[in-house]
């Protein structure tokens, strides 16, 4: 009988995920083939679209920024044993926080505004997660329901605020007054022309910093220790003298704050520079996929966010260059990537283990 052999580390962290992505692309390629297009060409278009030009790469980074924040929001709550389905609404409210700070101070230099945007977005995102957190901590209301409901409440609420309160007279689209250019977070192209017209702005560095901070918070801080303890064993958490209710609330607040940062990228960024109806556009939900695919670890979340950013951007290029490949197909391909790299990640593990088992036993003999 063959015994299972643990795989070498490089196989586990590099080869296996790579094979899984490949598998997803093969299935996606079959779909492309089904509409009579050349899958290799499609792949080429996607890759060059996402990474081949400064502009394309800039877009990829722009989407990646959103997905990092939303993914980290889900990941953080996950470590404390909670499933935050609400980043979509939290990010939406974050936009309100950004614009409420931006408008009164409109015209101030961006370098001063940037940190304020971060505070505003984070504070309002946090607020929108605080209530579900408190309800979970004090009343035991399941976080999954409350965050779903808070997403549903955010839509009409923001609709009202944007179209009835913030929209300046004479403007037809549902959006707030614009933030002045000087106050907006500059795009990357203002520093590196390479990025062309892409909307990616300095917020990407905040996102990268947040990844590092997330690692520190979860694995290097006392708070993170308490949070992980709670996620694994609430009874032992109380035993350790950690207040469970406090942990739940604080964790949700930070999680919501992370989601709220999505708004900094949009509302405070040079490209949008205003609060627009429905600006989140599903990034919060993509965050769920990103968090789980990235195994709630910042490295994983970062990679998954880039993968999804690239899929979004490359997919758009693909839709552009191959009109018969629609945006629905790109969603389908994303589904394949989630499925194979996320849910079925172990499908190739067993054959691989056999393979390596054979090698190592051959060596032993």
């Amino acid at each position, binding site marked *: 009988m063959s015994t299972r052999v643990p795989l070498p580390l490089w196989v586990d962290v590099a080869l296996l995920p790579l094979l899984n992505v490949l598998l997803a692309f093969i299935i996606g390629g079959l779909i492309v083939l089904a509409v009579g297009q050349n899958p290799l060409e499609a792949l080429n278009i996607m890759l060059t679209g996402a990474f081949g030009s400064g502009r394309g790469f800039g877009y990829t980074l722009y989407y990646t920024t959103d997905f990092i924040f939303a993914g980290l929001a889900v990941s953080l709550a996950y470590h404390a044993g909670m499933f935050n389905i609400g980043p979509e609404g939290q990010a939406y409210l974050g936009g309100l926080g950004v614009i409420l700070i931006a408008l009164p101070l409109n015209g101030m230099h961006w370098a001063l505004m940037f940190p304020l945007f971060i505070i505003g977005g984070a504070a309002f995102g946090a607020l929108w997660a605080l209530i579900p957190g408190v309800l979970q901590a004090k009343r035991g209301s399941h976080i999954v329901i409350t965050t779903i409901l808070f997403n549903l409440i955010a839509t009409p609420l923001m609709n009202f605020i944007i179209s009835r309160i913030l929209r300046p007279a004479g403007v037809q689209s549902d959006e707030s007054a614009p933030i002045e250019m000087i106050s907006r977070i500059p795009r990357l192209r203002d520093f590196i022309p390479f990025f062309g017209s892409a909307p990616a702005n300095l917020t990407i560095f905040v996102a990268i910093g947040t990844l590092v901070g997330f690692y520190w918070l979860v694995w290097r801080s006392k708070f993170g220790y308490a949070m992980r303890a709670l996620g694994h064993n609430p009874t032992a958490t109380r035993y350790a003298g950690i207040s469970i209710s406090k942990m739940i609330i604080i964790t949700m607040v930070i999680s919501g704050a992370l989601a709220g940062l999505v708004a900094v990228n949009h509302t405070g960024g040079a490209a949008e520079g205003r609060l627009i109806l429905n600006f989140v556009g599903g990034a919060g939900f993509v965050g*769920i996929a990103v968090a789980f695919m990235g195994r709630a670890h910042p490295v994983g979340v970062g990679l998954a966010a880039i993968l999804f950013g690239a899929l979004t951007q490359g997919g758009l290029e693909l839709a552009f260059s191959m009109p018969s490949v629609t945006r629905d197909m790109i969603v389908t391909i994303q589904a394949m990537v989630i499925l194979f790299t996320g*849910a079925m990640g172990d499908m190739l593990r067993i054959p691989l283990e056999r393979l390596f088992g054979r090698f190592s036993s051959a060596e032993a003999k």
Partner: protein
Amino acid sequence: MQFFFDMVLILDSTIRLSIPLLLACLAGLYSERAGIVDIGLEGKLLGSAFGAAAATAVTGNPWIGLLAGVGVAMAFSGIHGLASINLRGNQTISGVALNFLAAGLTAFLGQSWFGRGGETPPLTGPQRLSPIQWPYAAELGAFADNADNNPLLRIPAEIYSELISGQNILTYFAFLAVPLTAFVLFRTRFGLRLRAVGENPKALDTAGISVTLLRYQALVITAVLVGIGGTYLSIAQSAGFTPDMSNGRGYIALAALIFAKWRPWPALLVCLLFGFLDALQFRLQGINFAVVGQVPVQFIQMLPYILTIILLAGFIGRAIAPKASGIPYVKER
């Protein structure tokens, strides 16, 4: 009296609005009771709505549509099972993948088959699953509408003709599914094992019963129920498929399931409550209230969700999920 008649109509609307939720909720109940978290209900609803509408559009027969709707849900459950039972993958992410898959694939296939931007051709007449009129419903309806008749007789006549009669066959099925589920779950051998596998799969395994088989059985029932729910959306409630037509109902069903603490009768109540608040909300839009005057419509639209939260926090308390749900069963061999 008028209030009463309005109420009957609102309840009628309540029923129609809650049926897809109820079917999805019961579907989720089987899978989560068996220890498999199903956040993919949304995708399964959407996929089966498409399957049903597409098959009906092609064959003209809604029963074939129903089969196709269930078939699609079955296929989705199959993927979910393969990922989360055999491959011990993360159940949540598998569900998320299904939601993406449904959103993408339905629109894509719809477009390439029917060329209407993902919509199926509109279904007419016998292509739809239509309401069933009970005997004398029309007569009693007319009786109830006549203000000269005895109010005490008009009330039951109205209830019979509006609420009991004239519902869709899938509606009757959904209501039947509640006692049936309660029976299966608490009165049969299968139900006992199902509940056990969601609480402690090891107990079942050591009792010599296959955890894998049982979980697949649960997923099959899930597929049947949610498949009927999707079918209801596209060929009973509406006359065709539009992309993204499930519009979050799967998530709400999930919320209802937790709200109901994974029990069938409370699930019925919660789904009816959600439906009722929604139906009421339609009526309240644009009404002038005595004290506050006209409330912005957005706040009326939030009302059902806010009320739900208040109910949840105020009265329902902690919901404890089946212990093993979400955890893949790993047995060292």
